[in-house]
């Protein structure tokens, strides 16, 4: 029978053999080795004529096939019973079966719902979001952090202007109300923006005391986006919650 090769890329000699077996509807346990060898060599010839690279493994298999073919042509050995004589094809058949099992396993794998092809999870880009959302744990240290920041404010104030005794024009309670009012309007407020007049030391003190009180009453929460970064005051119950 004339045989035309449909040129496919084979994963190796075993893959090619399995293809030939399937194509010819051959029983894998009873391979007509002469015919398969002929087709196999034809394929190699074709590859060669097309100047395709032929991996060494294909040539090794070719010689194996020829060897088996020659063994099959030999008359059964005279000594011993025929049953104990092993079929020269057995080793090859075992390899083909083994390889076929894994090809099937591979096919099973590729039919799975593959992540990134058939189904998606949160992408790896998520770390960026996590970073945005990351907030320093301020449960215990919020007062300290506030204090640090506050000290900065005061230091700047005293550095830039001689100390000045001013009478507080606004009480802590009033300042609390002001802050809450700002928060109810805007949800969050930048810590430093609560100290608009950097020279007004007494207002700064009042503001700071007001904030401490609000933290203590859990009416605001304090957030810092990154260490030493901006401090954000958030109204509890403002926005989502």
């Amino acid at each position, binding site marked *: 029978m004339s045989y035309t090769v449909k040129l496919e890329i084979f994963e190796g000699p075993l893959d090619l053999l399995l293809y030939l077996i399937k194509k010819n509807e051959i029983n894998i346990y009873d391979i007509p080795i002469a015919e398969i060898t002929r087709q196999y060599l034809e394929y190699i010839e074709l590859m060669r004529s097309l100047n395709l690279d032929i991996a060494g493994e294909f040539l090794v298999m070719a010689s194996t096939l020829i060897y088996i073919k020659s063994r099959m042509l030999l008359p059964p050995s005279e000594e011993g019973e025929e049953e104990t004589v092993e079929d020269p094809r057995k080793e090859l058949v075992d390899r083909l079966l083994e390889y076929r099992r894994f090809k099937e396993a591979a096919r099973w794998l590729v039919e799975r719902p593959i992540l990134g092809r058939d189904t998606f*999870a949160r992408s790896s880009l998520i770390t960026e979001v996590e970073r945005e959302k990351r907030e320093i744990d301020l449960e215990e240290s919020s007062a300290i952090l506030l204090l640090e920041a506050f000290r900065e404010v005061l230091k700047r104030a005293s550095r830039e202007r001689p100390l000045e005794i001013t009478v507080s024009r606004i009480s802590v309670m009033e300042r609390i109300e002001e802050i809450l009012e700002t928060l109810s309007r805007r949800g969050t407020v930048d810590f430093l923006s609560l100290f608009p007049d950097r020279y007004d030391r007494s207002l700064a003190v009042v503001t700071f005391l007001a904030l401490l009180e609000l933290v203590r009453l859990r009416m605001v929460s304090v957030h810092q986006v990154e260490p030493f970064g901006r401090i954000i005051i958030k109204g509890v119950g403002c926005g989502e919650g």
Partner: protein
Amino acid sequence: MDVERDDLKALIEAILLVSAKPVTLQRLERVIQEGRRTIKEALEELILEYRAGNRGFYIEEVAGGYQFRTRERFTPWLKRLEGLKPPSLSQAALETLSIIAYRQPVTRAEIEEIRGVDVGGVLKGLLEKRLIRVLGRKDIPGRPMVYGTTREFLELFGLKDLSSLPMLKEGADEE
């Protein structure tokens, strides 16, 4: 009581959302600090709720943990999203991967015996993709490295664990 359970479910949802990787039960325990039974029960309720509702995603038990995964019927649309990198797996890579999955720990020579071809390049690619890893060395002459699959392998193929791989067909059956 019921509210607590609802809250627990919501908390698990939140944890699954922020986790890029599948979350194990142990991890949920450590984060939530409730008993395993309580968490497991809430989790299972949640899984059922997601499965029953007409939702865009569901909870998949995968790689020893739990993970939100989008429903397959939305894939055609989701593929239009920019920045998705579909996995690229060649036939050679798949075959090698399946041999490693079933035969681990396995040496390169053992894989090559089965596939009948050199697998050096394929192994390198799979290592780079973190689908396999070196488990150690085999105590035979030359002390060759032995390979095994990774958590990422399970994740990629949506496998709960290695025992979810189907049995290899033994011998005798052609189609």
